[in-house]
């Protein structure tokens, strides 16, 4: 069965279950459904006695290749020049000023626009070609290099924003200014949840070793904007409460909690008799969902039962909760449970100074676990329908920020070209897409805008990016704002 048919069937099945499982009289059923339908259109949700969230799309726009996404966001702007975009010319002309013919008067950030000179600098680290695609990958990424033929490396990404806050917000919401729903919220709204016990959109944070006190994150990056708050990203934390307020208080066991919920339900039902307000039934359902989350979240987070070879794949950091590696492993477990959108953020790529030292540490943080995640999904047969995305909010300049010495340099933000990679989920494996000039400054071939990337991502999920919209304050909003084209060359 193709995924398109499968989804239709699933929707029908769900609709059927919701109608029969309520066990209400036919009159009440009619009114309840009437109301539900109304709300579905109004708010983009249908809560069916707590059985997860159904998406607003009644059918996919075309057959989907991917069912879920794991987005490994490298926050701060990783330098493409040390990782994927090999530019020997920069080493040859090390220390020379960036020619104006290359820069063409383009905007610089306020951090370097005052510099007297813009000394070119190439990567301190070596590059080799890997796999059948012959992709150039840095020596900093030995594990990633080994899976080159699984990857679709896009060297021609570009964005409109030059500073972190607007640039990250742009990537995650399609707009530089805060207030719009994030990618995961759009997907939860559009496609709903495949797991009635876990949120459709989960978020995992980790702090890099490259620049531990780099730039911050903002909880609005996983906010639902104007969509229903059921679609907000739920942070899974390496803390006592893996989800905020998840744990029952001390001295109240599971049976104690169950008992309280039973009493609550009985009391709320009595009140429903009196007021007839359907919100009360919805509330009862939400309490049941909360109860199930209290089991399902710790279950998915208890990684102790993972075998040793898995830890060997992901690396020693995977043993430490809250690290990037541990989060990658957790991401796989969430994907197995049918979570739609798993968003990781790894902080610390904002290396304005001491870049050689910082990026070496930072690359080590992520290299092994990112590659392990791809291969782990592959060995489970899940890579085909899971899209993995690796990348930051912009790239970095080909000239040094601050003084260039024999061993040290920094790089400023560079929005005009940077590299991301994707794997699995209907993306073409083993290709390098797009190119930049010999200075690594401008794109020379196949530019991919952030909105194009977003459109392509939605396409893989069976969504036409122009058709997943939400009307708010009189306007139909969408993730890609008013632009974006599916990059067909990237599709398998």
């Amino acid at each position, binding site marked *: 069965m193709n995924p398109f048919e499968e989804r239709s069937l699933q929707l029908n099945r769900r609709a059927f279950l919701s109608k029969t499982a309520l066990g209400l009289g036919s009159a009440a059923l009619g009114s309840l459904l009437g109301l539900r339908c109304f709300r579905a259109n109004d708010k983009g949700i249908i809560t069916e006695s707590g059985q997860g969230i159904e998406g607003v799309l009644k059918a996919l726009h075309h057959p989907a290749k991917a069912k879920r996404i794991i987005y490994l966001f490298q926050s701060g702007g990783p330098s493409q020049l040390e990782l994927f975009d090999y530019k020997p010319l920069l080493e040859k002309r090390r220390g020379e000023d960036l020619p104006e013919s290359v820069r063409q008067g383009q905007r610089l950030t306020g951090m370097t626009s005052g510099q007297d000179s813009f000394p070119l600098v190439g990567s301190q680290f070596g590059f080799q070609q890997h796999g059948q695609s012959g992709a150039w990958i840095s020596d900093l990424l030995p594990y990633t290099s080994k899976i080159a033929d699984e990857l679709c490396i896009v060297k021609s990404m570009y964005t409109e924003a030059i500073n972190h806050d607007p640039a990250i917000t742009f990537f995650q919401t399609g707009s530089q200014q805060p207030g719009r729903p994030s990618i995961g919220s759009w997907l939860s709204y559009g496609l709903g949840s495949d797991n009635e016990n876990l949120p459709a959109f989960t978020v995992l944070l980790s702090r890099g070793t490259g620049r531990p006190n780099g730039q911050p994150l903002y909880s609005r990056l996983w906010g639902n904007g104007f969509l229903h708050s059921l679609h907000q990203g739920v942070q899974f934390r390496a803390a006592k409460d893996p989800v905020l307020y998840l744990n029952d208080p001390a001295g109240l066991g599971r049976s104690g909690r169950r008992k309280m919920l039973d009493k609550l339900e009985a009391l709320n039902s009595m009140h429903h008799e009196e007021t007839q307000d359907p919100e009360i039934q919805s509330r009862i359902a939400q309490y049941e*969902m909360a109860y199930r989350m209290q089991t399902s979240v710790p279950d998915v987070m208890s990684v102790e039962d993972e075998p040793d070879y898995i830890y060997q794949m992901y690396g020693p950091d995977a043993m430490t909760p809250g690290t990037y590696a541990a989060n990658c492993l957790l991401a796989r477990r969430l994907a197995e449970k049918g979570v739609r959108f798993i968003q990781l953020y790894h902080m610390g790529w904002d290396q304005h100074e001491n870049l050689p030292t910082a990026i070496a540490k930072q690359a080590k943080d992520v290299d092994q676990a990112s590659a392990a995640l791809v291969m782990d999904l592959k060995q489970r047969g899940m890579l085909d329908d899971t899209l993995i995305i690796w990348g930051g909010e912009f790239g970095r300049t080909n000239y040094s920020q601050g003084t260039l010495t024999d061993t040290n340099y920094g790089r400023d933000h560079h929005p005009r070209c940077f590299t991301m990679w994707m794997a699995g989920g209907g993306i073409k494996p083993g290709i390098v897409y797009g190119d930049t000039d010999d200075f690594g400054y401008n794109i020379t071939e196949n530019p991919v805008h952030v909105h194009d990337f977003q459109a392509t991502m939605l396409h893989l999920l069976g969504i036409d990016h122009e058709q997943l919209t939400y009307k708010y304050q009189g306007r139909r909003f969408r993730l890609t704002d008013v632009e974006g084209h599916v990059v067909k060359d990237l599709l398998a």
Partner: protein
Amino acid sequence: MSTLKSCCFAVFCTALVFSCEQASTADKTLVATALPEVVDFNFHIKPILSDRCFKCHGPDEATREAGLGLHTEAHAFAALGKAQDHYALVPGNPEQSTLIQRIYTDDPQEIMPPPESNLTLTEHEKALLRRWVEQGAEWKKHWAFLPPEMPEVPQAGAGWAQNEIDHFVYAKLQEKGLQPSSKAEKAKLIRRLSFDLRGLPPTLEEIDAFVEDDRPDAWARLVDTFLNSTAYAERMALDWMDIARYADTHGYQDDFERVMWPWRDWVIHAFKENMPYDQFVTWQLAGDLLPEPTLEQRIATGFNRNHKITAEGGVIDEEYRVEYVADRAQTLGTAFLGLTMECAKCHDHKYDPISQKDYFSLYGYFNTIPEKGFVGQLNQNFRYAPKPSVRITQKEIEGIVTFINNRDSLPYIDLMVMEEQEEPRKTYILNRGKYDQYGDEVQPAVPAQLPPIPEGAPNNRLGLAQWLFTPENPLTGRVTVNRLWQQLFGTGIVATPFDFGNQGALPTHPELLDFLAIKFREEGWDVKAMLRYMALSATYQQTAAASPELLEQDPENRWLARAPRLRLQAEMIRDQAFAVSGLLNEEVGGPSVKPYQPEGLWEETTGGGGGSTARYMVSEGPDRYRKSLYTFWKRTVPPPGMLIMDAPSRDLCSVKRQETNTPLQALLLLNDPQVLEASKALALQAWEQGGADAAERIAYMFRAVTSASPEEAELQLLLDYFEEERAAYTEKQEEAQSYLSVGAYTLPDTLPLADMAAYTLVANTIFNLDEAITRG
């Protein structure tokens, strides 16, 4: 047509509701039967044109197709084609009208809207358009742009009606074949009023006194008492802080702390004094431009400095300065005009008659502030106020601005305010809204489709403020009374308080809206008087309980045949827990406080540069139990309990909150240590003063939280629960001990452990009842 659409369509267009399955078979009959006798342009036709046609045939000249515009009468009736030989609309003649032809054709090349637009018309909508043309295609200006006219008050509803509101509502009910509901019980009424006006539940003493008060004006007295409380001012400030996008940090990147709370203290003061709304707004928009402005008037202008300010290294100063000016223009649009002005920032508005020139002309009023876009100094000291600012000395606080609660007794406070720069900055249209893409120069002006600035008024922010309150201004009065209505009825007469334009909802009771808007203006923009008037209506005092029939007939309660049941706002849920358990600290104003929140939330996202906002340091002692409006608001990581309960992020002006129902809300109410602290405190109160036995104590707790005595079955259920848990905890004293150890608040250790643990469990259960977080 999908079942989904047909179902909604049934709800909207007829008083009859079909279940989903029935509706699809009933489509054809509905198309015919549901068409109104007289098709009205504003109510039936323009919503369709705006939503489905304006995108390509609307106000935005740049994207207008085939020379056809449907946004003005002149455009819509103009001759079309090279030969100028056909017309989109021929009054009285649908066959000759190309608009009607093109919506009914089967030819995919011809059909409108075109398939690639992803827009379609329902059969009903097509039939409406057709009938409207048949009936002569009468064109009317957008309703909200016409000044309100004093309508005739209907006679309907005599005997039931308490004031004019009820006549308007009753007339509509009659039209829909509905009857008003009976009056709510007094205990329900006092709870409703108390939350709506004070944001707090009534005390047991207040309930008892009101229930026993048989005087004919008991209700009016209660309304007055509540309106005259300080809690009223705080409750009003709460909504105003959403509108003003108030926060205790600058937002963006490192999100440094700022000091704006003295402005918030002023807002509370102004509501307490019942400052007339025109003055309240004028001071905030232009207090600095008043003749010889007082310190208080200048403090009020902090309203327009509540926007975010960046200190992110490397940003371009002008880019962000433009952003701040745009934020002010957007806030003016949303808060006072109910217009989505921001839609015209990059291009002419797609739906409303607001051009990009209009947008930048309005923007021009806010573009002359001597301010910076990039303010690097924010990282040095949170008391630094980006210029322009005013220094408020301790002497002034003790003398003339005594409403400022300067708890730390600092020698002075610097506060951001508005000011005009000496050499006014020129304003240009910014192409695509980009900060450096200059188009034509524009002069400050109000939108061309609205009445002009009053004669003799200065063409600056002060004139702009005066313009808002002229009798000719069609929007300010309506927008404001609509929001006050929303405060008492949950939904405005216009359900989209942020959009009175073509894409907004139409008023359910247009005559009532106009009546209230005019009354509000004529009675001196008196907010308390307007709230009082609404609260005294019979409409407001109806029961919220609905029969299944009524629920079917009007599920969204658009016609007000009952009072709405509303989930309490985020702040009210938390404040109620503290109020009924005696923990609430009622101190007014002052620097924001940091009550309990889960550990690590600030720490795990900070870049280390946040100064005082890098780590969350929980306040000590009674500051943990302040009202929620005093909770420190870090914009990039707002208080989690507030967000979970639908408070907006305060990034932008917001005039309506979501009302959602999620599992995270359940977890919050079940497990937040603050709720558990309140449960313990309430248990202790019940133990000490709630009665002689468990039944009485439980009934006491139930009533304290829900304002209603439990039904017999409810009480029995809770009593059984209590006995079971007490028995269990008697066996497991250690568990009772650890359950009671959650949170900072501790019970005296002289009390019987098992009893207290079981009472606390019951209290926690009561706090989680739907009834506890709802006002019916």
